[in-house]
């Protein structure tokens, strides 16, 4: 065990060294003039920009707006899609109506519908959030439906024969058994929601990281573009980590977490 953790630590150390090396090469290549600083501004310049933006608070306004839009759309999608997925698996009529709609909607590139939402709801937060909800909805409903419909019939029958009511059945059997699949759906939907948030912000403006980056791009401010990419990379990593943590927390009882 100790050798394994030592090995893991060594690999982590190696990877940190690789990253440090890359950062050095990046810094050196623009300082030494191997690459034009417009194409690749020095890492230190980008970090300085990030720091001044943090001091002025501009980063937090943009990050906050992007996060707020992404999470609002994502949560609305989850609130709609999880019950619908369960209903589809439980009620034949619901399944009949929604299955063809969802199996057609799932593989479509939803981002193409942005101009329709702009036409209907203008360019402010409403249309952004609706667009994000629309693109998060399909992965969640598909995963919930498949997770719920693959539940073994035996636990359901035993619970029912022991006198469980429909709501008990839902709370005690269906939700826990479908939870891993639902979580997977959420974990697919959130990055999709982030991509959609950035694109809607780039297209409609109204601040947020996407808006700030496209403005930086238009003014040929490549340091600003790189600072924006770093901010988004950090935000994406934090959000995805948070969902991983949530999964581990919610599914503590599940065999998938027992290995460690």
């Amino acid at each position: 065990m100790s050798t394994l953790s030592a090995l893991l630590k060594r690999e982590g150390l190696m990877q940190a060294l690789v990253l440090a090396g890359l950062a050095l090469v990046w810094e050196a290549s623009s300082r030494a003039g191997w690459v034009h600083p417009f194409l690749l501004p020095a890492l230190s310049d980008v970090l300085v920009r990030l720091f001044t933006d943090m001091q002025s608070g501009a980063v937090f306004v943009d990050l906050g707006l992007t996060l707020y839009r992404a999470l609002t759309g994502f949560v609305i999608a989850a609130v709609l899609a999880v019950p619908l997925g369960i209903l589809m698996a439980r009620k034949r009529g619901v399944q009949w109506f929604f299955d063809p709609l969802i199996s057609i909607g799932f593989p479509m590139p939803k981002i193409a519908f942005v101009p329709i939402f702009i036409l209907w709801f203008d360019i402010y937060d409403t249309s952004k959030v609706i667009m994000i909800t629309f693109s998060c909805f399909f992965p969640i409903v598909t995963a919930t439906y498949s997770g719920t419909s693959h539940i073994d019939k035996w636990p359901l029958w035993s619970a029912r024969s022991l006198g469980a009511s429909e709501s008990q059945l839902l709370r005690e059997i269906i939700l826990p058994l479908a939870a891993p699949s639902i979580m997977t759906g959420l974990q697919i939907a959130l990055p999709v929601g982030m991509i959609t948030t950035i694109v809607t912000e780039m297209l409609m403006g109204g601040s947020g990281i996407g808006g700030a980056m496209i403005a930086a791009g238009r003014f040929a401010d490549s340091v600003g573009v790189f600072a924006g990419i770093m901010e988004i990379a950090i935000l994406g990593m934090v959000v995805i980590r948070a969902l991983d943590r949530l999964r581990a927390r919610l599914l503590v009882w599940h065999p998938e977490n027992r290995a460690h």
Partner: protein
Amino acid sequence: MAGGDRHPASATAGHGSFVEVVAVCVRYLPLLIMLAAWELVGRSGLVSQQMLPGVGAIATAFFDLLQSGELVTNAWRSLSRAATGLGLAVIIGIAVGLLMATRPLFRTLINPLVRILYPMPKSALIPLVMIWFGLGDASKIFLIFLGCLLPVIVSAYHGARGVNPFVIWSATSLGASQEEVLREIILPAALPDILAGCRTALAFSFILMVSSEFVIAKDGLGFLIGSLGDGGNYPAMFAVILTVAGTGFVADRLFGSFVNHCLRWKEQA
């Protein structure tokens, strides 16, 4: 992956049996209901024809665009970019993923990059590729390539890591070369994961194709949608949007049947 795969019966309904035809009709009836509702809402005047053009108007606009050649030209430009980016990503992604799984040094070098790039929303790179490659094809192809690359790398890596080492040891002890082990054991065993990664990449290629054409508007389907919308020609805008959505759907379905064909040797769970 999606609902259609769960109904193998409806896929083979071409035998002309009356029951099967009825079953297919019943299955797709909800789509007709939605279409009728769309048409009715448009006609009733609840929303203006501008906001929700009728089904007939959209169909007419579609055929006009088809005849004028605008749709075909732009679709060709878009799809060739998507295919180039995706194709490069699949080839390079599989190679990198397999190398990461079999060469520890390679993994140490590449893994930090993968871990940084994987969770990043790739659409954020649009301004960067604009700076690097300008407004032409190269910027969009590079964006699609990068977006599709990571799901392929990660799936190939996980697929190859999941291979039972005993099988590899037996093959090696029976005299298989490294290249034979890769071709005969690791690649087939990782294939289901690789194909699933490619399917995700296919979806990403469409998303990034359209978004990059919206933002870096020069030509292609995304540009066509934007310019029709700006010109107020909403039936035509709806027609192109539905064309993009339909193309994405058909591409996914075709890839799905290709996957089933490739994995027909696999036992069905």
